């Protein structure tokens, strides 16, 4: 591990809690604490806390902000209410996805949360397209921390710890608590398929706030447990949520990547033309969910076969701890994409039978 890795404000807390640390997108991050499967199950049943401070957090201000963001993002942001968040893509002119982001409208500004691996790229893209506009872009990543508290017990625990009942906060909405010039922003959202809260707050508050969440070494919180990037991946695959570098990349457009829901083809955004043409002509490739027979795991780039011919490639796969099945997401040719289609996935030189299934693989009980 090199000494040039960036550390989040929670780094030392992770180490003290026994985390196994790894390099991720230039940051030193916890991949696991008690174990991936244990953390995964705890998230589905109780409450886990993930450090996501490595993700980019940008502040956009200026008179042109809304028009500008509506041109940069695939999602329709026009007239967005204060207090609302939107999942969106930011694309190249050819429709290739630059990143998937969360865009939020606050009273005084707009916020963009982007992937850690794409932060430099997105900041450069935003500046490039801000030329000549009344716009200011500030990177608040290193001044802030962000934690994702996920699991069915999260809202109860939040009420115990803060006295505030957030159950009336709608999904993909957020509240803001002002502390002088600083803010704590709490979003009802997440990347696990469970109910939960994601909280952005000033980095210096970490030593004060984290012990309230985790307890102390002598008296750890009875329910809240830390979880790492390993469990974050198994959880999001079960929930069929895309990951940049796997389902999303510059080589694929938002429609093929299965995220048409966040694309408004009726508005003019960078990348809309190729997507309109694709939709008109019919998508030649689609992102599908696969359920494999047996317990072997399909990895990214594993070949997918239909009727003996190569029809696609796996983007992500795992042995689902919750479902007890080997599941994967893959790009396949459109004629192999219908539910129930029998395919094969090549794993370690063997072709394992698989079938196309509806996504998400897992849906939380309501």
């Amino acid at each position, binding site marked *: 591990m090199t000494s040039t890795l960036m550390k989040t404000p929670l780094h030392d807390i992770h180490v003290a809690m026994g985390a196994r640390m790894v390099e991720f997108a230039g940051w030193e991050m916890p991949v*696991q604490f008690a174990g991936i499967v244990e953390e995964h199950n705890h998230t589905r049943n109780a409450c886990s806390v993930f450090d996501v401070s490595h993700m980019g957090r940008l502040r956009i201000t200026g008179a042109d902000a809304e028009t500008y963001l509506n041109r940069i993002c695939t999602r329709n942001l026009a007239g967005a209410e204060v207090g609302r968040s939107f999942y969106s893509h930011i694309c190249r002119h050819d429709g290739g996805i630059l990143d998937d982001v969360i865009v939020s409208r606050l009273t005084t500004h707009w916020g963009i949360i982007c992937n850690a691996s794409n932060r430099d790229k997105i900041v450069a893209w935003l500046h490039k397209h801000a030329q000549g506009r009344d716009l200011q872009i500030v990177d608040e990543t290193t001044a802030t921390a962000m934690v994702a508290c996920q699991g069915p017990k999260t809202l109860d625990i939040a009420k115990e710890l803060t006295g505030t009942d957030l159950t009336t906060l709608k999904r993909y909405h957020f509240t803001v608590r002002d502390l002088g010039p600083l803010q704590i922003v709490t979003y009802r959202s997440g990347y696990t398929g469970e109910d939960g809260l994601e909280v952005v707050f000033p980095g210096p508050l970490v030593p004060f706030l984290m012990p309230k969440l985790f307890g102390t070494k002598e008296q750890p919180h009875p329910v809240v447990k830390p979880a790492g990037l390993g469990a974050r991946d198994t959880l999001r695959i079960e929930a069929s949520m895309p990951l940049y570098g796997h389902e999303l990349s510059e080589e694929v457009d938002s429609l093929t990547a299965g995220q048409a829901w966040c694309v408004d083809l009726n508005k003019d955004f960078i990348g809309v033309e190729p997507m309109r043409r694709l939709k008109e002509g019919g998508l030649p490739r689609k992102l599908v969910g696969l359920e494999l027979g047996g317990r072997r795991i399909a990895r990214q780039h594993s070949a997918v076969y239909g009727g003996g011919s190569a029809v696609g490639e796996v983007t992500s796969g795992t042995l689902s701890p919750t479902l007890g099945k080997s599941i994967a997401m893959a790009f396949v040719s459109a004629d192999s994409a219908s539910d129930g289609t029998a395919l094969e996935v090549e794993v*370690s030189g063997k072709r394992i039978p698989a079938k196309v299934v509806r996504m998400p693989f897992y849906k939380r009980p309501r």
Partner: protein
Amino acid sequence: MKVPPDRRYAETHEWFLLDDTIVTMGISQYAADELTDITYVELPEVGTRVTVGDLIGEVESVKATSEIFTAVGGSVVAVNTALVDHPELVNDDAFEEGWMIKIKADTPDPLHALMSGKEYATFIRNTA
């Protein structure tokens, strides 16, 4: 980190325990910990003939798939069938209950070229 002194170790983290002409092998606790939750172990058929350096099996976890190599030649006389339904035994007890393959070795000579427990302990300390 437990590294039993009664066996020999390969740089690829397999361990080999000699008892008369039978060599029992598995992967080290260090390797099992690195893989994290093991979900599947691919073992050879009993009766398979192997040569020194052959790919003899695979270990899969949510994190990665790892290949297992034999350091001795001979024929496979037994495999740990408990690992079919309970691959997690490798994580729980890599050196005992997590044993993987027993080989009737043509000769134990190749084991001399492997590391002792002490040497392996130093090896993994330097790797981490």
